[in-house]
């Protein structure tokens, strides 16, 4: 069945608008795991979701632009054993995040560590068993 041009245009437009966010689930190979950069900003959203916890942070790039970084954490069950809770971060609070940047150059990364303004450190894994 031939698709009328206007329909395929609309589909293409929809595909662009609905392009998968960095919040889709993907593997660690999507990040430079042995490289860690540090960002500091204000929490816009904290998502305690399966299978990954997300911290969306608004970062000032120093040139007057604000960029929303999407920092991906481990699953909630694992972070809970590292001391995180569903409300450990609140929108509006300032955090410093050490993360491994994404290979696709988007403003996203895999969390290595989160440090709250009061100095509380949130590791990305529970302490080792031995």
């Amino acid at each position, binding site marked *: 069945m031939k698709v009328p041009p206007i329909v395929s245009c609309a589909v293409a437009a929809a595909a662009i608008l609905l392009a*998968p966010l960095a919040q*889709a*689930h*993907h593997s660690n190979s999507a990040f430079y795991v042995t490289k860690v950069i540090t960002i500091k900003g204000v929490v816009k959203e904290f998502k*305690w979701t399966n299978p990954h916890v997300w911290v969306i942070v608004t970062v000032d790039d120093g040139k007057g632009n604000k960029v929303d970084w999407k920092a991906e954490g481990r699953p*909630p069950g694992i972070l*809970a054993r590292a001391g995180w*809770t*569903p*409300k450990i971060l609140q929108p509006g609070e300032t955090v410093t995040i050490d993360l491994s940047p994404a290979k696709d150059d988007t403003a996203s990364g895999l969390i290595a560590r989160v440090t709250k303004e009061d100095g509380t450190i949130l590791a990305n894994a529970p302490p080792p068993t031995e």
Partner: protein
Amino acid sequence: MKSQVRSQVRAARIAFALVVPLALLAQTTPDFSGVYYPVNPFGNFRGGPPAGARPTASAPLADGSTGRGPDEPLLTPEYMAKWKEISKSLVAGSSEYDLTAKCLPPGMPAVMSMFYGMEVMHDKDKITFFSELNDAMRRVYLDGRKPSQKALDDPTYAGYSTGHWERDTLVVDTVAIRGDTFIEGITPHSEAMTVHERIRLIEPTLLEDRITVSDPKALKKPWETVKTYRKAKPGTGTDELREFACAEGIADAK
């Protein structure tokens, strides 16, 4: 000397015959372990017409287009409105509100419909119910522990279940259930929902789960339902469940 040994052996045999059964009797709780299939999981859906006749349906109608059944949970006006919205989207063909289509766990108490098979494992500290549909697991802690604040602050699909034995009946309470699941079908509920169950073997191979759902925000009164499950016959191959691996059916993730 010989007769002394003989009488000692006889005494030992008697003592043995007494001790072993007593030791075994000490374990009085029944064993629910095994693979089961639900009895009449689709309620009023009669399945097909008589064999050979042309089928008139492929599955139960589950979009609410025929209204609320008389034995369904009695919703408050606020939750009735939510239900109508969900029904509209299902009637239109959307799977937006269909958790199992998205490969998500059905949640409590819906998972206890066990539409496909159920696998139960238990010991004195824990009983687990595994649903073949979407490989969903729930655990019931039997060692007397209570949900921690951490568990209460982190609602899940299965919720947090604790139970204890009342003779041959397992009494279970489930709290901390996510608010975005359905009680059954597409009936919504609030985060205040809790589930109470009384589970027992009504025959050696027939397990019964009497479920009571309480939700002061969403339900006008607690809702009750009973699920029964028949234990699979050994040696027929039906006492082995197969993995579901639902996510294969979802288009490539990024």
